[in-house]
Structure formats: structure tokens, C-alpha cells
């Protein structure tokens, strides 16, 4: 499966090298180090965005997107270096140690005032992660049922705004530092449900959370403010236009959709919340 995926990716990437020449000039002299593209991701980087916490392999949705964008901008895979940053490091004032940062940053107008975002490379549905036990106890995919649950989310995620804005739970949600802590709280029964982007929720329910289940999803096209992921760049980074051009190309040529199909599981089976 993995081999097949990598081959598909390689095909997708090699088909575009002809186009790349046009964008290559754009990035010249605008990167941190001349001739190299420095890309940052999370520490650790999570499945299915980056496989095995090894973005260098180009495996995983965001790793593949990063290499595809780099290719469009005229950087070979060899000319890409990876660094790791936390969310806070990415937004701190002063010089950045990356050209762009890819770790499921949701684009919001408030954030956009402090940093620059590329065009969205992915639009995510939000999904409700819970356990089989909670569903057996009668929780179902209706807003009324969701309101009565005890919620927990990662404090730095935009899912918190969605939770308080759309679901409006009856009891105050609990907030955590990272996915691992939310999962610990679910498994300890301290919270009934958590809100994640759909790919992460699928992975967590299948692999990480014991007895995990997906209660339902808020499809991106039905959300009032869908969750767009963008690359994060320093405010006023001249590279932005090159990155945007690369993403536009990838979107129009269907390569982005191909990468998505390769790495992000089908989620048609997840019920839609009404």
C-alpha cells in the first residue's frame, strides 16, 4: 500500500517538472538560504499529515503537499530542509527559522493580522470523536444530543471556536495542550467527546483511542466557517506569491486532489450531523 502510494506520488510530481521552470525564478533570493527551501512542521508531526514523524520521506498528506509545492517553486527534493516548530515558535515576533510552516494551520482573519497565510491547500470537515461506550449510552449525531455531552478539545485549535459557536455545549468544555492529552481524557472518561478535523479524528478513533468511534461530521461545505488549512509564513514574506502560485497550479491541475486521495482516507461512512 505504502509502495503504491509513493509511486503514485512520484508520478504526480514528475509530471509537473516542466511547469516548474516558470515559478523557479519567483522564489530566487527570497528564501532563508539561497537555493534551499526550509519547511517547518510540528514536533511531533501527526499521522496522516506526516507518516512516522518523518517528513523527509515525503509520505503523508502534508509532507507530500510540501514537496509538490517545493517542486513547483523549482526546488528539488534534495533542496528541501525540514525544521520543527511549535505553534508558539511560529507566531513569535522576530526572524523565523523557516520559509513556510505546514502543520494544519487554520486560516482565520485574526491570525492573518499577525502572520501571513498561503491559499488553502485543504478544507477539512470537523468530526466528533467519542467512544463506543458513549454511543451505546445514547449519544447520536444530532445537535441536541451533542449539546448534552461533556466536551474536550485542544486549547490552541480553532475547533474550540466551532465548539462554543455551533454546538454550544451545556457544560463548560475542558481544554488540553495537545491531542495526546485529549485522548487521555477520553480514555479516562473525563470527557465524552472531542472535536477534530476529520482525517485526524478518523486516525485517532481507529488506532489511538481504545473503543474510539466517530459520532458524526460537520462537512466543510455545510459549515458557516469551514476549516481551511494554509501554510503559515512570516508577515510580509515575499515568498507568499510564489507559494500561492504553486498551490493554484496544484489545485487546477488536480494534483492536490490526487495527493489528498492518496493520503487522506475516504470518510463517506461518517454520518453527517443535523
Amino acid at each position, binding site marked *: 500500500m505504502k509502495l503504491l502510494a509513493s509511486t503514485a506520488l512520484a508520478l504526480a510530481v514528475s509530471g509537473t517538472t516542466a511547469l516548474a521552470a516558470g515559478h523557479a525564478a519567483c522564489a530566487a533570493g527570497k528564501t532563508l538560504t539561497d537555493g534551499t527551501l526550509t519547511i517547518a512542521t510540528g514536533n511531533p508531526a501527526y499521522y496522516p499529515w506526516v507518516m512516522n514523524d518523518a517528513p523527509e520521506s515525503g509520505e503523508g498528506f502534508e509532507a507530500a503537499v510540501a514537496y509538490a509545492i517545493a517542486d513547483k517553486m523549482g526546488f528539488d527534493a534534495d533542496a528541501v530542509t525540514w525544521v520543527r516548530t511549535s505553534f508558539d515558535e511560529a507566531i513569535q515576533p522576530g526572524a523565523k527559522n523557516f520559509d513556510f510552516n505546514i502543520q494544519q494551520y487554520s486560516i482565520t482573519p485574526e491570525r492573518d493580522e499577525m502572520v501571513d497565510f498561503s491559499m488553502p491547500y485543504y478544507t477539512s470537515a470537523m468530526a466528533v470523536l467519542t467512544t463506543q461506550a458513549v454511543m451505546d449510552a445514547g449519544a447520536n449525531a444530532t445537535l441536541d444530543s451533542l449539546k448534552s455531552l461533556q466536551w474536550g478539545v485542544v486549547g490552541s485549535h480553532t475547533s474550540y471556536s466551532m465548539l462554543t459557536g455551533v454546538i454550544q455545549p451545556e457544560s463548560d468544555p475542558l481544554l488540553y495542550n495537545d491531542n495526546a492529552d485529549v485522548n487521555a481524557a477520553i*480514555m479516562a*472518561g473525563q470527557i465524552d467527546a472531542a472535536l477534530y478535523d476529520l482525517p485526524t479524528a478518523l486516525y485517532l478513533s481507529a488506532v489511538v483511542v481504545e473503543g474510539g468511534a466517530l459520532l458524526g461530521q460537520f462537512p466543510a461545505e455545510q459549515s458557516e466557517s469551514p476549516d481551511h488549512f494554509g501554510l503559515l509564513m512570516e508577515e510580509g514574506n515575499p515568498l507568499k506569491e510564489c507559494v500561492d502560485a504553486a498551490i493554484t497550479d496544484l489545485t487546477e491541475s488536480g494534483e492536490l486532489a490526487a495527493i489528498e486521495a492518496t493520503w487522506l482516507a475516504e470518510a463517506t461512512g461518517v454520518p453527517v450531523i443535523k
Partner: protein
Amino acid sequence: MADASSQDRAAASSTAPTRRALYEAGVRRRANRIALISTLSVIVAIFVLVPLAPGWEAVQKSFFNGRVFAATFPGLLDAFVLNVMIFAWSAPLIALTGLAIALCRDARAPALFPLRLFGIAYTDIFRGLPVVLVIYIIGFGVPGLGLPRPWNSPYIWGTLALVLVYSAYVAEVIRSGIDSIHQSQRSAAASLGLSDRDTMRYVVLPQAIRNVVPANMNLFIALQKDVALLSFIGPVEVFRQAGVYKSLYANFTPYVGAALIFLALTIPATRYADYLMNKQNKARR
């Protein structure tokens, strides 16, 4: 004693200042002048030089952003109520547990040696562990055993973690207070026919605890700040709320707001602890 001698001096100087008194007053004035000038120049240097730094505008925009501050400060104040509540129910528990552990460590009867051993192990372990670690282990670990709601609440187990760690510190402070009471006090109490128990209760503890009030004040100021660590296991107190705003606005100003709220409480408390400490030092002199 100190009061009496200063009164003497005051009386002497009010009639006619001696040459020595005049000279000393001159020295004091000069020292005050120098202190004033040096303080002012440091303040001026900070306020003039820091904004000259090339990145100041960026720092100002992400740490001292008036718009973000105004938008988030009310929410931070709301969240701070939770800090105060956690503090309010933790502090008495910590004081009682700390006292109990201190008494364990002071158990002198041979038969009570296990109690003494327990006291030593308790203080060694919980003073040796980072607070965050204890909060994580107890806050996620114990509920993970399968307790039903509401008994798996992070408030209960987070509070327990705070009580465990802080009572170990308080116990050590109280023990130092107990040790500071001279053996002659116990002997005197024994000669009056007081039992060991009554000696501790009516003779040693009242003096010991009075002696360590300032030191314990410092611990409770530290506790006030460490309450924020409970946010790691779920509760949305001021530090977490500031983190949420930070992510929302991609701006660190909410943390500065939270810092101001903490300072508004801890600075008066610290001043008060210092005042108590000074008063005590004077009384002992």
C-alpha cells in the same frame, strides 16, 4: 530595646543636632540623591533604548497589542475566578495536610517510628517531583482506573496533586518552626505536668506556627501561581484562557494580560509577607 535607643537619639536630635548628626544627615541625603539619579537613568535607558531596537515594533505588536488586550482582558478576568476558587479550596487542605505530615515527622515515641518514616518519605518524594508531573500522573492516571463521573473530575484529582506537593513543602516549613522551639520549652511544659500531646498543642505549635507564617505566606503565593498548572488536565483557568486567545489571535498579548492579573494579586501578597517577616525580625532582635 531597639525602640528605646532610637527614642533616645530622637530626643537628643530634637533639641540640637550634633555635628555628627548633621554629617550623617548629609551622607544620607547624598546617598538618596545618588539612588534617585541611578534609578531614573535606568528607567530612562529602558524606555528610550528598548524601543530603538530594530524588532521593537514587531514585539510591541505581538506582546503589547492594545486592541487584542482590550478584546481579551474581560475574558481573562472571568477565567481568573476559577483560579481563585481552586486556590480557595486547596489552601486549607494544604495547611491541614502539611500540619499533619509535620506532626508525623516529629513523632518521638519509638512505637510511632513508622509514622515518622512515612513523614520523611512523603516530604522527600513530593518535594522531589515537578508539580506538573504529579498533576499529570494523578490527574489522568487515577481517573483512568475507571472511576465513574463525577469522581473522575480533573478538579478533584488536580486539587489532590496540588495538595500532595504543596503540603510537603508546608510540612517542612512547619517542621523547621517546631525545631526552632527550644527544648527548654518542652521541659518546662513537662515540669508543669503537661502530656506530650498537650505540650505540642498548647506550647510548641502556637509558637512554631507563628514563627513560620511569613515562610508559609511565600508558599501560598507560589501556590497561587501553580494553580495555573491545573490547566494541563482540562480546567480552563486564566492561563489556558490566555492560551486560547493566543491561538485565536496569533498574538501573545493575552499572556501579558494574564501576567498583570497574577501580579495584581501576588505583589500585594508578597509585600505583606515581607512586612510580616520584617516585623518578626524586629521583634526577635
